[in-house]
C-alpha cells in the first residue's frame, strides 16, 4: 500500500462486503425474475468493488471484480446470455471476493483465485466471443479515486459500447461520493473561479530532511492560493513530524490542475499521490473504524437527497454497552431512592423530586436505547434467497422462496441469535420438505416447490413462520426413530399426539431423513434451533400434514428477553430455572424415595419421575441433607424430571444476558442475569445439564 491505508481498511471491509452481498442478492433475483433493472445494480456493485479494491491496492480482488463486471456487462447487452452456469460462476466469484476482502482486512494475503480467474476468462470469451485482455487495474489505482470509472485498456473491455459506460451518476451510491470526489477534472472545465483541490503528497521515506521538503511544498502551495485543513499542522511539518511522510491539504485556488502539478513537480523527494477536486461540503475523511462510528450512507435503493446522512452506523458492541450501562443507571437510581428514605422528613422532598426526575430521564433513555437496538429482520432474511438457491441447486430441487414482513423489527441481540436457526429451518424445508420435481409432478403438485417465510407482529411478540408445500413430516416414523434411540418408551410414543411427535425432531439424533446429506438430516440442528429460540425467550412449534407440507412457527419476544425465573438454592448458590419449563414444586423425604437401578424416583401424578440432585448436575458443593426437601418438576427433552434442591427462593422477572466468552463454552447454561441485589445468577438449561 502506498498510502497509510490502514485506517480505511475498516471502511473498505464494510462497503466492499455490502456491495458483494448486494451483488449476490441481485444475482439470485435476476435468475428468478430476469428483471433488467437488477443488471444495472449488479454492474454498479461489481464496478464499485473494483474501484475500491484497486484504490486500496488489492489487485487480486480488483481483477476478479473486473471480470465479473465484464460478464455482467455481457448480460446487460444480451439478456439471453443469462444461464444457470453463468449465475453459478458469478455467485462463486462473489464468494471468493468476499473471502478475499475479509482476508485483506485482517492483513492476510487474499486467497489465490487463479482457477476462478481462468473460469471467468473462459466464460468471458464464451459469452462475448473475445479473449479478455490482460487486466491491469492497479496501475491507475494511485491516481484514480475509487468511484471514478477505473480506466481500462481497450482490450480488457469486452464490448465497445461499454467502454465509457459507467453507471449513471444519478444512481451512484452516495457512499462513493464520500470516499472521493467523483467529478473528473476534465468536465470541470477551465472556469477560472477559485476551486478547492484535495492534495495528497508523500515524502520519500529515505528523505533526510523531511521538514525542509514539507516546508518547501507548503510554500509552493501557499503561492497558488489558500490552504485548508493541513495535515499534519504546519508546526509539525516544519519539525519533520510527518507520520509515514503523508501530507494532506485542501488548496483553494483559481489555478488549474496543470498549474498545481507544475508547482509541485520539481520538489525533490516529494511525490504527488493524488490531486482531485475536493468536495466542498463537509470534509470527506472517513472516520477511522476504531471510533465505533462510521458515517452511514443513503439507502442504496432510494437515492433521494433527503435520505442522506440521517443515520449512522454503530457497532453492536457499543449498543450492548449502552444497554448494560442504562440498566445499571436504573439500578443506581433505585438505590438512591432507597437511600433518600432514611433522610429526615424535612429534607426528603427535594431529594425525592430529584430522584424522580432522574428516574424519568433514565427510563426515557432506556426506551431510546432499546429502540436504537431494533433492527429489521431483513438483516438476516436477505441472505435466505441466496441460500435457498444454493441448497436447491445442490439437491436438484426447484424452489420459490417468498419472504414477507421482513421490515418488522426485533432487538438486535435476538436477531443475531436467529440467523443460524432460520438458515437451518430453510435447509430443512428444502432438503427434507420439498420433493424432487418428478415426485412433485407425480403427486399432482407443481414442479416448483414453495417456501414461504412470513413475519408478523402479534401483540408483544414477533411471529416468524416458515412453511413449505412439500411431503410433510411422518409422525409415526419420528416416534419409531425416537424409540429406537431410546429417547422414548414405546408406550409413551403410542400416547403421543402427532403434534407432540413432530417436536421429537428436535431431540438430538432423531431424524427421519433416509439419506444423510451434507446439508441436513443428521439429526443435529433441530435441537439447536429449538434451544436458541427458547434461550432468547421464544417458542418453537411444528405443524405438518403428510403430503401437504410443514410449518415451523417461531414466537419471539420483541426485545431482549425478560424471562420469568424460579430461583432455587443449592448450598450457598442460587440458580434460575425458566418458569416456562417448570411444571411444579413439591416436598418429599429424599431418603424414603423408591429407587430403580439406583435412580431415585419421585411419585408425581400417575407416574414416577427420575430424580436428579441439582448440586451434582451443577457441580456445586452442598452439605448433605436428610429428611424432607423441595423438588422442582420440570419438562426435559424426553419427559419430565424432578430436581432435588435445597430451597425455593422465589420468582423473579429477569433480563437475560447472553454468556460472554469463556462462559459460553460451558454446557447447561442458557444465560445469566443480575438480581436486584446485584448478585449474578446463572439460568440453567436443564435438558443440556442432563445430557452433557
Amino acid at each position, binding site marked *: 500500500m502506498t498510502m497509510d491505508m490502514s485506517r480505511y481498511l475498516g471502511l473498505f471491509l464494510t462497503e466492499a462486503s455490502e456491495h458483494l452481498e448486494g451483488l449476490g442478492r441481485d444475482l439470485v433475483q435476476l435468475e428468478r425474475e430476469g428483471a433488467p433493472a437488477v443488471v444495472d445494480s449488479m454492474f454498479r456493485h461489481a464496478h464499485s468493488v473494483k474501484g475500491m479494491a484497486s484504490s486500496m491496492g488489492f489487485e487480486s480482488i480488483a481483477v476478479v471484480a473486473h471480470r465479473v463486471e465484464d460478464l455482467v456487462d455481457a448480460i446487460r447487452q444480451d439478456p439471453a446470455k443469462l444461464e444457470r452456469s453463468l449465475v453459478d460462476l458469478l455467485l462463486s466469484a462473489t464468494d471468493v471476493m468476499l473471502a478475499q476482502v475479509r482476508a485483506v482486512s485482517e492483513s492476510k494475503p487474499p486467497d489465490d483465485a487463479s482457477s476462478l480467474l481462468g473460469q471467468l476468462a473462459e466464460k468471458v470469451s464464451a459469452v462475448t466471443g473475445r479473449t479478455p485482455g490482460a487486466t491491469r487495474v492497479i496501475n491507475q489505482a494511485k491516481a484514480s479515486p475509487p468511484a471514478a470509472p477505473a480506466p481500462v485498456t481497450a482490450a480488457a473491455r469486452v464490448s465497445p459500447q461499454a467502454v465509457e459506460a459507467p453507471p449513471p451518476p444519478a444512481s451512484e451510491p452516495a457512499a462513493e461520493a464520500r470516499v472521493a470526489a467523483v467529478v473528473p477534472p476534465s468536465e470541470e472545465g477551465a472556469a477560472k473561479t477559485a476551486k478547492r483541490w484535495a492534495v495528497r503528497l508523500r515524502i520519500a521515506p529515505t528523505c533526510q530532511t523531511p521538514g525542509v521538503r514539507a516546508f518547501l511544498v507548503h510554500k509552493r502551495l501557499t503561492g497558488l492560493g489558500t490552504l485548508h485543513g493541513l495535515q499534519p499542522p504546519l508546526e509539525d511539518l516544519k519539525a519533520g513530524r510527518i507520520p509515514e511522510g503523508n501530507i494532506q491539504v485542501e488548496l483553494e485556488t483559481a489555478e488549474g490542475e496543470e498549474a498545481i502539478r507544475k508547482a509541485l513537480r520539481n520538489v525533490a523527494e516529494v511525490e504527488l499521490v493524488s490531486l482531485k477536486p475536493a468536495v466542498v461540503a463537509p470534509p470527506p475523511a472517513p472516520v477511522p473504524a476504531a471510533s465505533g462510528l462510521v458515517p452511514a450512507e443513503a439507502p442504496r435503493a432510494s437515492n433521494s437527497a433527503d435520505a442522506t446522512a440521517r443515520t449512522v452506523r454503530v457497532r453492536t458492541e457499543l449498543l450492548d454497552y449502552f444497554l448494560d450501562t442504562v440498566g445499571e443507571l436504573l439500578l443506581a437510581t433505585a438505590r438512591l431512592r432507597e437511600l433518600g428514605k432514611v433522610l429526615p422528613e424535612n429534607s426528603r422532598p427535594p431529594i425525592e423530586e430529584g430522584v424522580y426526575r432522574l428516574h424519568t430521564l433514565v427510563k426515557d433513555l432506556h426506551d431510546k436505547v432499546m429502540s436504537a437496538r431494533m433492527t429489521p429482520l431483513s438483516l438476516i432474511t436477505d441472505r435466505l434467497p441466496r441460500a435457498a438457491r444454493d441448497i436447491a441447486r445442490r439437491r436438484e430441487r426447484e424452489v420459490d422462496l417468498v419472504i414477507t414482513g421482513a421490515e418488522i423489527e426485533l432487538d438486535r441481540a435476538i436477531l443475531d441469535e436467529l440467523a443460524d436457526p432460520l438458515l437451518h429451518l430453510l435447509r430443512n424445508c428444502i432438503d427434507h420438505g420439498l420433493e424432487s420435481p418428478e415426485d412433485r409432478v407425480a403427486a399432482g403438485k407443481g414442479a416448483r416447490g414453495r417456501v414461504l417465510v412470513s413475519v408478523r407482529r402479534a401483540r408483544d411478540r414477533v411471529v416468524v413462520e416458515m412453511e413449505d408445500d412439500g411431503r410433510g413430516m411422518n409422525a409415526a416414523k419420528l416416534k419409531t426413530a425416537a424409540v429406537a434411540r431410546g429417547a422414548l418408551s414405546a408406550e409413551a410414543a403410542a400416547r403421543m399426539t402427532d403434534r407432540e411427535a413432530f417436536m421429537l425432531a428436535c431431540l438430538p439424533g432423531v431424524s427421519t431423513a433416509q439419506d444423510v446429506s451434507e446439508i441436513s438430516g443428521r439429526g443435529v440442528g433441530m435441537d439447536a434451533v429449538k434451544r436458541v429460540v427458547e434461550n432468547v425467550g421464544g417458542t418453537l412449534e411444528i405443524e405438518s400434514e403428510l403430503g401437504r407440507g410443514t410449518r415451523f412457527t417461531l414466537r419471539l419476544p420483541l426485545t431482549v428477553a425478560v424471562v420469568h425465573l424460579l430461583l432455587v438454592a443449592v448450598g450457598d448458590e442460587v440458580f434460575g430455572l425458566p418458569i416456562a419449563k417448570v411444571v411444579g414444586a413439591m416436598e418429599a423425604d429424599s431418603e424414603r424415595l423408591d429407587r430403580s437401578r439406583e435412580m431415585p424416583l419421585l411419585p408425581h401424578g400417575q407416574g414416577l419421575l427420575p430424580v436428579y440432585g441439582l448440586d451434582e448436575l451443577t457441580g456445586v458443593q452442598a452439605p448433605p441433607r436428610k429428611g424432607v426437601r423441595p423438588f422442582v418438576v420440570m419438562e426435559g427433552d424426553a419427559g419430565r424430571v424432578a430436581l432435588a434442591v435445597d430451597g425455593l427462593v422465589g420468582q423473579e422477572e429477569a433480563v437475560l444476558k447472553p454468556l460472554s466468552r469463556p462462559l459460553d463454552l460451558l454446557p447447561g447454561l442458557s444465560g445469566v442475569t443480575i438480581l436486584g441485589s446485584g*448478585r449474578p445468577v446463572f439460568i440453567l438449561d436443564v435438558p443440556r445439564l442432563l445430557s452433557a
Partner: protein
Amino acid sequence: MRHVIFRVEKERYGLPLAAVKEVVVPPERFTRVPRAPAAVTGVMNLRGRVVTVVELRQLLGLPDGPTPSGRVVLLERGRRDLGLLVTDVDGIEAVERVSAAPGKAVPAVRGVARLKGVAVTVLDPEGLDSAVVGLFTAAQQK
C-alpha cells in the same frame, strides 16, 4: 513497554498496560459457575456486566492452592469479560528486556524480566486468553 506489575503470593507478574482494562476490589463472594473448571473462582457483577474471574495459579500450571485475593485485574479482551484473581497490584513499571522463562514453556508466559533487582514473570495476554479457553474446552470434554 509499560506493564502492570502484580503479585500472586510472593511472585511478581507483569501484563502489558494495554492489555489491562482496570483493577478492582473483588466482591465479598463470587457466584460459582456450574460445571466450570476448578481454576474459575466465579463470576462477579461489574457495573452490570458479568465478569468471569480466574485464578492465575492454575492457568500457569502451578499446583492448586487458594490465592489470597486482594485484587482482580480485568483484561482488555474485546467482548470477553475476564479477570485474574491476584494477591495485590504493585503498580505500573516499564519492562524493557524480557528473556526466556525458565522451566516448561506455557503460552501464557512470555518470559522473565528484572525490575529493580527483582524477577518479574511477563505474561502474554493472547496466551492467557487461549489458556482460559483451553481450560474451559477441556472441562467440557471431560
